[in-house]
């Protein structure tokens, strides 16, 4: 088994639009957090796709001020407009540690319930990445972090 942090909020948009804004505009709406920093100095996030299908070879990257690119994760499932899965590795993680993020878009009337499930974060070892937090506190902070991100998507959608 693996730990899970799940959060969901409704946004005023169709799943198609919410999915598109999540992927295409992540650099604009993303809110960097000092608690869950992907790189030491925040850059701009984007999804990058190769010549093949987005689900094969797509990746989430962070381009830093000097132009250096850090790969946060690879796209593992690409099912627009319902679902997107990517791996998640912060620069301060051990090299072999990859966690997993699943984003869901479910139509509810005229709105969309955007959910994020982040799996495996409890495997992050003790040390700087955890800011000294034990599991329950770390998981609550991670939930708050993602709730903030969904809130940001909601605001980007107007």
């Amino acid at each position, binding site marked *: 088994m693996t730990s899970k942090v*799940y959060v969901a909020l409704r946004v005023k948009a169709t799943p198609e639009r919410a999915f598109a804004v999540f992927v295409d505009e992540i650099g604009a709406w993303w809110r960097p957090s000092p608690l869950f920093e992907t790189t030491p100095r925040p850059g701009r996030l984007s999804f990058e796709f190769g010549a093949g299908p987005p689900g094969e070879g797509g990746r989430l990257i962070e381009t830093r001020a000097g132009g250096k690119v850090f790969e946060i994760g690879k796209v593992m499932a690409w099912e627009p407009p319902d679902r997107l899965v990517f791996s998640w590795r912060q620069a301060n993680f051990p090299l072999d540690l990859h966690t997993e993020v699943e984003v869901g878009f479910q139509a509810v009337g005229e709105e969309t319930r955007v959910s994020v499930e982040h799996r495996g974060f409890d495997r992050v070892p003790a040390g700087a990445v955890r800011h000294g937090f034990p599991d329950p506190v770390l998981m609550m902070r991670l939930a708050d972090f993602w709730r903030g991100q969904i*809130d940001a998507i909601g605001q980007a959608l107007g």
Partner: protein
Amino acid sequence: MADWRAPLMSAVCYLDPKAALTWLERAFGFEISMLIEDDAGNVAHSEMRFGNAVVMIGNEWTADHKSPRSIGGKNTQTVHIQITTDVDAHCERARAAGAEILAEPETQFYGDRTYRCRDPEGHMWTVAQTVEAVTREQAETTSGLKITGWM
């Protein structure tokens, strides 16, 4: 992030909080807004949203937190759901999900139509919809009660 949650929240204890999350969505239309599970799959924390209100669904996390099922069905507090839509339809949805209806929908002297039900672990829930505009004087006359404070 702006916290959208109303400042007063109930935290309700269940022996099986995961089953409760599923049941409360089916019966009352609550939506999971946060769920944290440890590496054994146990619910560490969860919140369900209804409008701008939140109810937290947890386990028996200390010796003094109990589900009614563990203490002979007794409740020491109940959660009230105030809705603006059809309370009779709400009751039928809850019944279909397996709620035990303790009091069928009935219009009360204060203008709300209410019902009361029990969930699978024994928590009682009351649900109401305002269906008539009643003044304080009318309510005092019909009930014989002295009423202080009136919406």
